[in-house]
């Protein structure tokens, strides 16, 4: 095998310019794909961070049926205290969970005493919300970003509402809400902060203390509409989602059926389709790379066989087994793939490392001073490398097969 490798290397060196051109094409393809994966991955992570760290959390727990009718913020699908306690017990036992925040969500009328409009309100435990949604203080365009996020009797309102009703910091406003029994109640709040809008659901909600929310809704017991969860490592999302689903399946109603459901941020946000689009783009780029490798290696190997027909005839005539002729040409294709991939991977990793050193800073949505941090996982590198090498091998297969099946007499008489 070593001898086949040696002769294959020499054959590639014999057609140095063509070998260089093909290797360069493969190298450029690998560099393009790995850099795209790295940079797109970095943007993707930042974009997901907008939703998970700015509004939603990584996961949310609701009572079954709540998400299906979330637009109307149904109060009859809140979780009672016993149910909430069971969920908290499960969450407290899971080391992957960094923080969680109970919320009471409802629709209300918002008034500045002269004008009235509707608003969606989240009643939260300020410290827990800030721990679960760490970008929340960053959304404050007016008002103190220092903790606590809220005090009882205070409200954070969205920018558009503040502009529309000409409400300023320190103004007193009124929230009027109808509770589950149809009783209407009102409560005054002081505007503590104005929030920049965030993309996606709940991006234009107001925030008050959870006890104020319960008081406004005249709840007889401390109910919760949803529990937002922040993970220590977002990469564990699917694993935690599955585990939580299993663990919470034990919380059942009187008929013994599970009453809770877990949703990931992607299931709750329409922006997950953008993330899917990035994944789709990555797939297309990979397909393009495969095509480049396939066509370039196929071209080179077809030419290599065509130009060496007499040589193939000679080595076949002196008794070289067809399988060895096949392996010789396959090895040439393989070396092209391996060489191009190795060089491409090295260049890509060097560029990614240089981007880390250079620290490219930019702003995106509510996040300021973001640092572009492209990275490729070992898995990505291995998958791309394996794909390219496999394609190089596949592209050489037909020409190599042709060479190994060549009739020595015809090959020797080829001009």
């Amino acid at each position: 095998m070593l001898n086949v490798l040696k002769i294959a290397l020499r054959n590639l060196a014999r057609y140095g310019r063509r070998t260089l051109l093909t290797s360069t094409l493969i190298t450029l393809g690998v560099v393009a794909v790995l850099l795209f994966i790295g940079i797109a991955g970095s943007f993707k992570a930042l974009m997901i961070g907008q939703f998970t760290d700015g509004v939603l959390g990584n996961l949310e727990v609701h009572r079954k049926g709540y998400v299906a009718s979330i637009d109307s913020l149904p109060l009859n699908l809140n979780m009672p205290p016993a149910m909430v306690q069971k969920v908290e017990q499960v969450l407290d036992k899971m080391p992957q969970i960094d923080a969680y925040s109970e919320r009471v969500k409802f629709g209300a009328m918002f008034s500045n005493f002269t004008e009235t409009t509707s608003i969606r309100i989240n009643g939260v435990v300020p410290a827990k919300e800030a721990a679960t949604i760490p970008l929340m203080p960053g959304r404050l365009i007016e008002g103190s970003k220092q903790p606590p996020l809220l005090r009882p009797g205070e409200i954070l309102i969205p920018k558009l509402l503040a502009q529309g009703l000409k409400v300023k910091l320190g103004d007193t406003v009124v929230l009027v809400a109808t509770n589950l029994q149809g009783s209407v109640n009102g409560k005054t709040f002081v505007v503590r902060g104005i929030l920049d809008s965030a993309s996606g659901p709940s991006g234009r909600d107001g925030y008050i203390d959870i006890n104020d929310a319960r008081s406004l809704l005249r709840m007889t017991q401390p109910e919760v509409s949803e529990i937002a969860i922040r993970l220590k490592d977002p990469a564990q999302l699917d694993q935690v989602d599955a585990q939580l689903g299993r663990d919470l399946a034990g919380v059942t109603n009187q008929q013994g059926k599970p009453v809770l459901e877990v949703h990931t941020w992607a299931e709750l946000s329409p922006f997950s389709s953008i993330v899917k689009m990035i994944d789709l783009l990555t797939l297309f780029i990979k397909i393009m790379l495969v095509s480049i490798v396939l066509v370039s290696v196929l071209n080179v190997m077809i030419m290599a066989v065509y130009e060496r027909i007499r040589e193939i005839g000679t080595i076949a005539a002196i008794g070289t087994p067809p399988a060895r002729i096949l392996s010789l040409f396959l090895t040439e294709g393989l070396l092209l793939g391996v060489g191009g991939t190795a060089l491409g991977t090295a260049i890509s990793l060097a560029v990614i490392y240089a981007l880390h050193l250079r620290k490219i800073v930019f702003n995106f949505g509510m996040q300021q001073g973001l640092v572009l941090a492209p990275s490729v996982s070992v898995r990505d590198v291995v998958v791309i490398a394996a794909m390219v090498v496999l394609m190089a091998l596949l592209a050489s297969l037909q020409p190599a097969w042709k060479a190994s099946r060549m009739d020595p007499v015809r090959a020797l008489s080829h001009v």
Partner: protein
Amino acid sequence: MQLIRAEQLVKTYRAGEVEVPAVKGVDFTIDAKSFVAFVGPSGSGKTTLLNMIGCLDHPTSGKLTVLDTDVASLDRRAAANFRGQHMGFVFQDFNLIPVLSVYENIEYPLIMVQNWPEQKRRAQITRLLEAVGMAGQANKRPDQISGGQKQRVAVARALATNAKLVLADEPTANLDHDTAYQVLGLMKKMRDELGTTFLFSTHDPKIMAEAEVLFTLEDGRLNNATVAAKAEAAHA
């Protein structure tokens, strides 16, 4: 001892609907260690006959036995194996592999065909390089040596695997007269030293004189066989 036996050997090529007979029922035997030339004009069937003996082509009919093997029955892989084990080839255009040195060209069948260990390979190649007078040129590439030297290397390559039979198709056609005689002399010397049978085709009358056995082909038929007196003397 008979090395090759042909009985009513026929080869017909098909060009579309037309059948072109190349060899029309020839019978001959060739003894081991002989130095044989197939002579005749272009298109007489010399190369076709050599190709069939060399298992590069199958006869259309008739029987052809080489080294007690019915070579007509060998499939592609078995034929390649048979060639690799028992035969060497010398071509009109030398057909050395351009990316390999003189040494590596001779080494090629030993590693790609027979897989000899390195030490044994080195000893064999060194011996052959000296025998063909190319010991000082071992590291040169084919494009760095003359035509005569290339053919010497080709002879050494053909003999590398200790082939019992070397087939040479017009081995002197691309060489000047003196060089052609030198190459033939070398082949004869190798036959004497190693006991290898040499079969070659030629239409050069001067070269024919060097053969010990002559088979004359005309229009696919064998006209006569001339056994040179000196060959008998040599074998006596």
